[in-house]
């Protein structure tokens, strides 16, 4: 806008230049503010990673330095070979448990929520609205209120100290929001597309895979990211249900060796750094679709 008015009135170029300079300064200040904010927000993460590479003497130094003077992989080694927790199991055991539980829960939740979303968005039937409201209420029930009964149920079903039990549970916890988000995606797919395909003689299964599925895929991405983070981070149920050490998931592993020798911050930070990698990688892969999906799926503006 400024440049246009400057060109329109050549006599006021000096004023225009001054205005432009003021705008540039403002911009620079805003950029600087943005930078400071980003740095502040990221600093604890930087500190976590930096601490993970520091030898103990530097971690407990009274004058902390931003970067390790003598960077070491010792903390990571201790975590990976399991020395840090002193239970004779390597990090990979827990990483494998966590990945197995998380990926299975994501697949299960995505499949079930896709089916349900199609039903809710496409077909009219009695109690449909009640079903949708129930989903939201379920999502708001505090997990800790479910811990006791699930503990007792699982105990009688022999699912208590089992990863399968956690998968079943995590998929269930992710379902309500998943269905809710996906249903809006299904609703935005024009019905005419399906009807045209049906006229061309495509069966329901074919219509689903060839028409609906590709269009709903971004929604599935958002849903699976959400389910991934929920399952990967889950703490309460894993803490209460798992008792065999070789079945621990990562959050329980870190809390275990935090509880055992509370002050070994080097290995704890190394473990935290390692745990952060999978969600970040997952998010980087799906990020564009994730945010667009989350918002498009819930807000119509």
């Amino acid at each position: 806008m400024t440049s246009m008015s400057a060109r329109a009135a050549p006599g006021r170029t000096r004023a225009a230049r001054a205005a432009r300079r003021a705008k540039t300064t403002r911009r620079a200040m805003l950029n600087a503010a943005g930078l400071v904010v980003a740095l502040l927000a990221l600093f604890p993460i930087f500190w976590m990673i930096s601490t993970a590479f520091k030898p103990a003497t530097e971690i407990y130094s009274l004058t902390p330095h931003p970067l390790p003077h003598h960077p070491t992989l010792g903390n990571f080694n201790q975590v990976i070979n399991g020395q840090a927790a002193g239970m004779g199991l390597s990090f990979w055991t827990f990483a494998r448990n966590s990945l197995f539980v998380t990926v299975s829960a994501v697949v299960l939740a995505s499949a079930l929520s896709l089916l349900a979303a199609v039903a809710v968005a496409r077909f009219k039937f009695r109690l449909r609205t009640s079903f949708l409201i129930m989903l939201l209420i379920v999502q708001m029930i505090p997990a800790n209120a479910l811990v006791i009964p699930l503990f007792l149920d699982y105990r009688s079903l022999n699912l208590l100290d089992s990863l399968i039990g956690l998968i079943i549970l995590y998929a269930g916890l992710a379902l309500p929001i998943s269905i809710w988000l996906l249903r809006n995606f299904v609703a935005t797919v024009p019905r005419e597309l399906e009807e045209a395909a049906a006229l061309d003689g495509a069966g329901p299964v074919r219509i689903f895979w060839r028409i609906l599925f590709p269009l709903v895929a971004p929604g599935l991405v958002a849903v699976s990211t959400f389910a991934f983070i929920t399952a990967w981070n889950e703490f309460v149920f894993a803490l209460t249900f798992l008792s065999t050490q070789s079945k621990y998931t990562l959050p329980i592993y870190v809390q275990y060796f935090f509880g055992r020798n509370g002050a070994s911050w080097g290995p704890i930070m190394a473990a935290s750094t390692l745990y952060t990698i999978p969600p970040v990688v997952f998010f980087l892969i799906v990020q564009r679709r994730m945010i667009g999906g989350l918002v498009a799926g819930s807000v119509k503006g």
Partner: protein
Amino acid sequence: MAVVEGVAAPAPKVRLRPRGVSRREQWQRRLPLLPALIYIIVVTQIPFVVTLWYSFQNYFFDIPGGAHFTGLSNYTTVFTNAAFRASLVRSVVMTASSVIVAMILGMAFALLLDRKFLGRGVVRTLIITPFLVMPAAAALVWAGPMLDPNFGLLNYLLTPFGVHHVAWLSTHALGSVIVVMIWQWTPFMTLIVLAGLQGQPADTLEAAKVDGAGALATFRELTLPHLRPYIELGILLGSIYLVNAFDAVRLMTNGGPGTATTNLPFYLYQQVNYAFDVGGAAAAGVVTVILTIIVATFALRMFARVFQFDEAAG
């Protein structure tokens, strides 16, 4: 402003087969819903019914003999229990303050980020990372390297201001836990608001500028109303999750010192794990759920306005 689906996209009212959908067909339509429905009921509804049942029982893990019916006595205990009420209040304080502050910061960040600048993509990706850190890990980063009384970074940075060896987790426990929650949830709020800002039609803003509206007036009159559904979505999702916050409390302060950071989830956890009081915990759980539903109903009213319930569409 958000529009109810039925208004936004006037769904074609002409059905393909308007009359007489057969019973069989109706069931075929419901069929895809059944697995998820049964699943949700099994995982979340049955346990709730079981909780209800136990809430009327006297049942301690550590006392042999199993459960026996005690009527409403567990509920009387819950309502007369000062510890329960205190943890309820703490839960509300924790959730409300962290969600509100995170949303205000998130809006500020989103406004800062909603401009063209070098490396915008990278910054936007980076800024979400606090949200991606496992809450247990985030709690530990803050509990140790950041807030430790001796080698913690915060005390070091505050030394010039005459602060020495403050044990933040003992003296400002509740505040410390809230800070961690705010730190984790601000990025989420930023992203939601940012998505809203990007959906704002540029021509309206341009028009406002031409009409000589100041930045503040434009923000208040145009941007804020446009952002409203996004802000509400952020607050709702944030509240649902933070009301259940457990990891940070368990790992940073273990509910203490004393009961300074014991929120409802942690209180329930203690009832089962330390007091072995299944009946009491179940009753507390039921009361929690009922309170949550009351709060949720208010939220839902908001939801129904903002999101699309299909009654309008038929």
